[in-house]
């Protein structure tokens, strides 16, 4: 169903105010949007990371829904257990409370560290087993909670605490892992990418996922101004530019069918995205021009591949190449 902004403004957020995420945290916006899109009763799990820490400092909790955090790498595995318990208790007529006749939804959350890296096995296993759950990765492209260390999602060239831009090594030397594609290769019913600045896209995807039985995966690029070294008020603009530069295409894969949800009108070069973020400032220096070109080529190649998978015409090319 169509999402109306006016309606949303009346909906109570399932994340209470007073949580301790930074002002300008892109991830908390993303998570709020996810839960705002879910109208059904929902139980959530979280991996250790910034949002877990920011929302549940005992004796406070920002969660108005049942929530469990166990450890860093097992959000998907923990949720497997919750969902299995639901199935078992439901079929035995033993569900607690009045939930016995309710259709409960299950969402597991993790940061990119907890999803691309240390939690990858648990995620892959849970998806393969076919649990009826949505896994949401809020991807801020580094281990932010522990002080901005590089992860499998950190883009090439980005400076982090463990991949600093040094005199010899210019930031992270590897390209990022394309987790969304890897999840699509799991052949699960629904896989998608989004960002919180594209709230309608994001929430439509969540709503769609809630209607689909089985395992679903949603990867949300969400900014961390501390780690990306941009301004807090730019937290949505910066992910918007990630979409416009085709670094983070909006697409979905439903039952094996790939669909591009948004095609930028023009070819916006990647430096436009990088300019906002001081983690890339060294890449924009003349002596690293070859790196910038390499990064651009990689983005173009991945974009063309995506267009092919989505059955789309090739898009606009860079002006001079």
């Amino acid at each position, binding site marked *: 169903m169509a999402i109306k902004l006016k309606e949303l403004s009346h909906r109570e957020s399932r994340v209470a105010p007073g949580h301790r995420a930074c002002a300008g945290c892109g991830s908390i916006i993303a998570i709020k949007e996810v839960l705002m899109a879910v109208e059904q009763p929902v139980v959530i799990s979280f991996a250790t990371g910034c949002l877990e820490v920011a929302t549940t*400092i005992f004796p406070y909790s920002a969660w108005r829904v049942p929530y469990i955090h*166990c450890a860093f790498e097992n959000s998907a*595995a923990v949720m497997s*257990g919750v969902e*299995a318990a639901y199935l078992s208790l439901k079929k035995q007529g033993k569900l607690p409370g009045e939930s016995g006749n309710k259709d409960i939804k299950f969402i597991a959350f993790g940061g990119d560290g907890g999803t691309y890296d240390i939690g990858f096995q648990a995620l892959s*296993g849970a998806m393969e087993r076919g649990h009826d759950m949505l896994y949401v990765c809020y991807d801020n492209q580094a281990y932010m909670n522990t002080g901005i260390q590089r992860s499998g999602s950190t883009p090439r060239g980005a400076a982090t605490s463990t991949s600093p831009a040094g005199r010899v090594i210019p930031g992270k030397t590897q390209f990022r892992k394309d987790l969304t594609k890897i999840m699509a290769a799991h052949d699960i019913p629904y896989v998608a990418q989004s960002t919180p600045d594209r709230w309608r896209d994001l929430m439509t995807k969540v709503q769609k996922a809630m209607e689909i039985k089985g395992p679903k995966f949603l990867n949300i690029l969400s900014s961390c101004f501390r780690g990306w070294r941009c301004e807090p008020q730019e937290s949505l603009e910066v992910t918007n530019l990630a979409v416009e530069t085709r670094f983070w295409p909006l697409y979905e894969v439903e039952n094996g069918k790939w669909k591009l949800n948004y095609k930028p009108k023009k070819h916006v070069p990647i430096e436009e995205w990088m300019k906002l973020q001081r983690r890339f400032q060294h890449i924009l220096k003349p002596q690293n021009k070859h790196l910038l070109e390499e990064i651009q080529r990689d983005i173009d190649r991945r974009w063309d591949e995506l267009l092919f998978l989505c059955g789309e015409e090739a898009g606009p090319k860079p002006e001079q190449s």
Partner: protein
Amino acid sequence: MSKVLPLTGNEAGAEAMRQIAPDVVAAYPITPQTELMHRFADYVADGVVPTELILVESEHSAMSACVGASAAGARVMTATSSQGMALMWEILYIAAALRQPIVMPLVNRALSAPINIHCDHSDSMGARDTGWIQLYCENCQEVYDNVVQAVKIAEDKDVLLPVMVCYDGFILSHTVERVEVLEDHEVKEFIGPYVADRPLLDLDHPVTYGPLDLQDYYFEHKRQEAEAMRNCKPVIQRVAGEYELLSGRKYGPFDEYFTQDAEHIMVCLGSAAGTAKAAVDELRDAGEKVGLLKLRVFRPFPAEELIAALSHAKGIAVMDRADGVNSIGGPVFSEIRAAVYGHSSAKISNYIYGLGGRDIDIDMMKSVFQDMKDGKYAEQAYYIGVRE
């Protein structure tokens, strides 16, 4: 009315699990636990139990799924051995500290390296301070009885801690013995229905599990966990009493075998106790005042009861099937010596035996008693049955 069946330790564990019929079981294969899960998977496949069986991709996820399912409000079990338990390590602490009454048969197997599939206690002994209750078994009957009792102990409102039922890999897991099993309805009535405290699935009362606990609260929560471990002593006793009424079999924190008037007492746990009893029998026949104390409950550690049972001895030899690799001795030894310190003038020695499934026989057990008789007590552990 009980019936007698020829069962291996794993089959006895599976039989208990069938009767318990947990709501959720999460499991991953590892020798020598595998046959337990094969059998249980048959029960699931045949619709004999209503269990949701989650065949996870690792033991780390097995324990994680158990925590999730238990917090959701389900009665939950898993089983593992050795490396599998090692992989669960992180989550073992969390299961206990989140106070989830998960029950886990742990089929004791040596830890790598070198890789080895046979019995020793290095896996469960390494997990002795994770906050899990630990029960050890001498034979297949005890496997069955302890698994059934474990559920009731774990779920007691004064306890709410997970329980590990430890039994020796291959020596028990793969050996057929005579096992008396209760009727299904007897087990069902004995354990009763599980009513979870504040389950996640109670949507009317949303709860937050696993928040960040800082300097201002963490200590109090750990203190409560420690208190729960203390509380379980009377609960374990009460459950054993009720179980005795039902089964006729008596359980306590430990078994005493000719210890009352013994001058020299051996302490051990697990299947080696059977061998030790045979050694005691032979030595008693020869007129020697020797005895055996077989530990069943290692966590909570029954220190007061042990003092009462051991302090009259002249000598105590503690048998460890796990090495501390600490230049002092094994874990059972360290705890026994700490417990009797100041309460007894007994000399205490330690023997590391049976690592990686190495046999221990009656003569070796007798040689330990002989050492005590000869006044041989070393500060560091003796190794028995090894080529030096």
